[in-house]
């Protein structure tokens, strides 16, 4: 009997031939990540362990992205604590604003997370790197502290749920729509404790940025990981990026799984998740016409260059509705620069959007675009819980960049195909 991709990845890191779902193992960590919210807690805990040095200064990334540029004194103190620790320990991957990006966009871009590896991050969207064929999962700050000290961490081997997307993706439909559809079908705990594995012709035809979007939101179905078997697209992405040699690990076709779903994506409409759950998913036509106050394009889910290209294609020659505030936040400095070179930023600014330096900002209701009571936003981010983007009496809808751009233009939730000719 074969093994799934998740089992093989964990077995390798645990130095075992085979592991089975439910088994508790100790695995070697290839990269450990923290941010300005979770790392300060981890650093304090690290101090209690009684070791002098981190296990490997090249294999720790500390990224100040949530409340940066520092939004207030308390946030500045948190970042300073992390910066001082990074300097003291000689952490190789600490990136200051201006070089920084939202962690889950930045680490892949820098070639720091690779196929075959086991990666932990004190951030739930660490599962993003599953798109590269790594077992990547979110943990807490105490876990990060232990991993920084020892280079190891305990895991319970998860069972796998396979999702096979058949057919061919229609135009204006992308990774965000596939993953929203998946979460809508599975529910917010449909993959709890399990590894999701995405496969099939639709995934094979999807670019790396769309794949990151899918793996990123695996956690929204409760999953421990969101894996995509590496292929030519992955290799192409890593060609001039990978900082270390890596191995490609795929699952066996006959590996037992918890469930397998085969869904045809050929007739999929763009999807939108309504408040207050990422599983409250509907085709955009069902929600069309809902009035908006703010639209946000960015985040670790949809702030990459392909996302900005999609949004710019819709916004070109158009204007944001006078009642709406459109915030565009490139996820990393490199994405920002690329968008500048391609003229995308000019399209956004001409459309009367605000464009800012990379930050998590409004995604978690941190800063740079907080909602007032009663306000409604549509965002390309990943969570729409009560109060996620500001006042507990505000609302957030989730969608992909094309729907977000179209909705910013009409001032209401809109299908991008229904905008008519641009001027």
């Amino acid at each position, binding site marked *: 009997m074969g093994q799934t991709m998740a089992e093989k990845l964990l077995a390798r890191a645990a130095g075992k031939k085979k592991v089975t779902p439910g088994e*508790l193992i100790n695995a070697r960590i290839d990269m450990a990540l923290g941010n300005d*919210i*979770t790392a*300060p*807690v981890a650093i*304090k*805990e690290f101090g*209690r*362990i*009684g*070791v002098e040095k981190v296990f490997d200064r090249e294999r720790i990334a500390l990224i100040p992205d*949530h*409340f940066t540029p520092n*939004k*207030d004194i*308390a*946030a500045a103190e*948190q970042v300073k604590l992390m910066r001082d620790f990074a300097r003291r320990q000689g952490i190789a991957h600490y990136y200051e604003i201006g070089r920084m990006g939202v962690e889950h966009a930045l680490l892949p871009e820098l070639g720091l997370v690779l196929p075959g590896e086991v990666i932990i*991050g*004190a*951030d*739930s969207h*660490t599962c993003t790197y599953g798109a590269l064929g790594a077992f990547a999962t*979110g*943990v*807490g*700050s*105490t*876990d990060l*502290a*232990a991993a920084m*000290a*020892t280079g190891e961490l*305990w895991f319970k081997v998860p069972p796998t749920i396979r999702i096979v997307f058949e057919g061919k993706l229609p135009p204006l439909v992308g990774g965000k729509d596939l993953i929203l559809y998946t979460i809508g079908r599975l529910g*917010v*705990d449909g993959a*709890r*404790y399990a590894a999701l594995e995405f496969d099939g012709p639709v995934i094979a035809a999807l670019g790396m940025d769309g794949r990151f979007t899918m793996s990123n939101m695996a956690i929204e179905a*409760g999953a*421990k990981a969101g894996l995509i078997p590496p292929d030519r697209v992955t290799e192409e992405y890593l060609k001039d990026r990978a900082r270390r040699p890596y191995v490609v690990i795929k699952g066996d076709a006959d590996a037992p799984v918890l469930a397998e779903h085969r869904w045809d994506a050929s007739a999929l409409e763009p999807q939108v998740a309504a408040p207050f*759950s990422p599983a409250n998913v509907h085709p955009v036509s069902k929600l069309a016409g809902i009035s908006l106050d703010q639209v946000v394009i960015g985040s670790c889910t949809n702030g990459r260059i392909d996302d900005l290209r999609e949004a710019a294609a819709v916004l070109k020659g158009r204007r944001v509705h006078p009642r709406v505030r459109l915030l565009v936040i490139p996820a990393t400095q490199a994405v920002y620069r690329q968008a500048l070179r391609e003229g995308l930023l000019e399209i956004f600014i001409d459309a009367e959007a605000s464009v800012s330096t990379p930050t998590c900002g409004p995604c*978690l*209701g*941190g800063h740079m675009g907080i909602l007032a009571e009663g306000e409604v936003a549509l965002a390309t981010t990943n*969570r729409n*819980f*009560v*109060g*996620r983007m500001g006042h*507990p009496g505000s609302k957030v809808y989730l969608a992909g960049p094309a729907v977000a751009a179209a909705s910013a233009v009409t001032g209401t939730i809109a299908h991008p195909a229904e905008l008519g000719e641009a001027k």
Partner: protein
Amino acid sequence: MRALSGNIWKFGDDVDTDAIIPARYLNTSDAAELARHCMEDADPSFSTKLSPGDIIVAGKNFGCGSSREHAPLAIKAAGIACVIAESFARIFYRNSINIGLPILESPEASRRLAEGDRVEVNLEKGEIRDLASGETFTAVPFPPFMQELIAAGGLINYVRQKKQELHK
């Protein structure tokens, strides 16, 4: 391990970490400050109504959403002695064990207990007893490795012990 007893505060399914501790308070990791805002977006007066030793009983997927350890920390610092749920989101589950917040998975208790009920919890046996009706519910037991973690007082103490053993 001691037996706990307290009054129950009841919550539904899918209580997310933004409801437990909203991100707007995450510019600090001060436990007392976090405790003041515990469950604020689900019930604004929650932190003022509590008595130390009270117990949260919730539905399925408690603690879903972000990895913020501030969520179990806020609950613990607010004086909640234990969380009982039908099921927990996995990062929350991990974090609670790692920081030493007692949690129990018991679908039965989650269904049958109501707000205001007074229960006694035996963590070692995983037993939850409704003090009014005398009804007893059992929780899913922890695997031995996790019991070891809990007995050590959380992950940090566990790692510390391991390090010291290595250097002996």
